[in-house]
């Protein structure tokens, strides 16, 4: 986790949670373990991960205090006068749009559950203590079984674990809390992307404007099912929404930074939450496409160090 920003760490933590929940889910499905084991496994994973991060942070801090490996914070360049009027105005616009989106999620009953049974599945897991023991929509036992591609997806288990640990209902978690988290993490992913597209300190106003336009697009671009904005505002708990709002922009940002190994996290996270057995998902084509363009650029320039390239 070297050299990672706070936004990177938040997104990676979310992916880590998906991974833990998926492992617990597979233990339930194929190992016939009860739901309580998955909860314990998840909580233990979070605690161990938290402790490991805490120890690392403490060692880093101790290293700084003793002067070993100390990093001096770069002083602002001369003439860099901090927050300008334009920066403040753009920031205000972004905050207003963000607050509007939070209000939309929390104050209105605009939940699109068409073609999706996640909420019912979470309630069934909480009630029966196992996954897919009963048909989530009726509560009766399956007579014909269900497709494997559904059984292996761990998103309902993640939500059920969060309901159990946080003590809130599935309805509230999935229609309010999760969409808010997805919105926040989505902005973090786009912020990481913005830093790649506008890397200079003098371009920070453009970075913020980028984020403001993303916010405007989420509001304005929710006119059709399948659009990013529609997913976040009306069905933020769905796997496809998490993919489009968080995983895909983050994958793009990682590709632009040549952090190819880390893209594997996004591929695996998508596999856990979307029907990846119908095709290989959307993150893989992004990685392959960006990789192909990178190779093409290298061939064109004739060397590994292209003029104008970063790192």
């Amino acid at each position, binding site marked *: 986790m070297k050299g990672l920003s706070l936004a990177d760490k938040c997104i990676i933590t979310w992916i880590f949670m998906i991974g833990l929940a998926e492992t617990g889910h597979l233990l339930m499905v194929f190992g016939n373990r009860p739901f309580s084991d998955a909860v314990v496994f998840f909580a233990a994973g979070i605690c161990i991960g938290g402790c490991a991060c805490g120890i690392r942070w403490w060692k880093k801090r101790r290293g700084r205090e003793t002067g070993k490996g100390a990093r001096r914070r770069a002083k602002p360049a001369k003439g860099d006068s901090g927050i300008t009027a334009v920066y403040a105005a753009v920031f205000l616009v972004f905050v207003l749009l963000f607050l509007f989106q939070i209000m939309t999620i929390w104050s*209105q*009953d*605009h*939940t*699109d*559950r*068409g*073609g*999706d049974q996640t*909420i*019912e599945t979470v*309630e069934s*897991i909480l009630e029966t203590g196992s996954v897919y023991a*009963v048909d*989530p*929509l*009726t*509560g009766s036992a399956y007579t*014909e079984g269900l*497709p494997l591609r559904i059984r292996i997806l761990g998103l309902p288990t993640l939500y059920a674990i969060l309901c159990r640990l946080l003590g809130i209902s*599935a*309805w509230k978690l999935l229609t309010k809390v999760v969409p808010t988290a997805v919105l926040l993490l989505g902005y973090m992913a786009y912020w990481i992307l913005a830093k790649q*597209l*506008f890397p200079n300190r003098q371009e920070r106003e*453009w970075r913020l*404007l*980028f*984020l403001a*336009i*993303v916010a*405007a*697009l989420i509001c*304005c*671009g*929710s*006119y*059709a*099912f*399948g*659009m*990013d904005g*529609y997913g976040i505002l009306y069905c933020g708990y769905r796997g496809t929404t998490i993919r*489009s709002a968080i995983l895909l*922009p983050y994958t*793009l940002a990682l*590709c*632009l930074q040549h952090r190819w190994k880390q893209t594997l996290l996004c591929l695996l996270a998508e596999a856990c939450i979307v*029907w990846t057995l*119908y*095709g290989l998902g*959307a993150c893989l*084509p992004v990685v392959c*496409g*960006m990789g192909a*363009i*990178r190779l093409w*650029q290298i061939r064109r320039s004739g060397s590994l160090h292209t003029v*104008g*390239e*970063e790192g």
Partner: protein
Amino acid sequence: MLDRLHLAWQGLADWIDRGKLPALLLALLLYLVFGKKQRGPQGRLIWYGLVTVILCICPVTALLLMQYQTGFYDYIWIWSIVPVTALIAYGGVRFLADERKAGTGYPALLRNGFMLLLAVAVLVLSSGLGAGAWTERVSAGSGSAIGDVHTTDATALALQEALARDRAQEVLAAVKANASTNDQICLWAPAEILEYVRALDGSITLLYGRNMWDIALNAYRYEVYPAETQQLYQWMEGLADGTEQAVGEQLPEQLDAASRLGVNCVILPRETDVQEVLADGTWTASEVSTYIVLIKMTGASE
């Protein structure tokens, strides 16, 4: 083959029917590709966006992408590989940054302000401001039993949905209060109640679930409802709509059929005449909200 190509093309036509953000994306890509040379990460993003947009628009490559999805997903999901939001945002910033007039005087301020307003207008006119899609999906009954097909007003529909959910919660509370604690409740009710039951309370089983009217949910299962169950659904919805004729005469038979399938709790519209059903003591009745709750007496024979 031609049919499948037409399907891919029709998918694009439907996709850009309501809003024009893909068209705005193309316009911005044109500006970025033929404008100032972009290198590094910016250049890679632009070229990736251009290639993927072309792949999604061209029917042949769109069809290949749909095949990559094994033909299960709709056309719109192939656009997941296109970073629409990121590219429009980047293109917008690039346009405003490159075309703005330098300086702090009034002419510069007016020009830049006017340009910004026009850009916002373009963004707003390229999209539908959101509400249309949700209301149309609900009104069309796409996955929801709620919705007055005669209104697409977002506020009215949201209110309907909120009221329906509150009614469902109220009915559930009454059912659990009146039912015996030992009995597993198996509920049969109008779709607008069943819509929320399993999402609010996982302990109640249903005669049929949302997949009875939201056929997309049948992709999650192999089972189909037997004809008898489907007939009960048709009857109940006819009763709830007020279109079912001579309901009083049919009620005992329908309740018997439901009982045979394990139902021990029935929700009916309040105006339903249940006197004949209550006469033999098999069912007890109570009223809640705009419904009558019938609960089968424990140990009552069919």
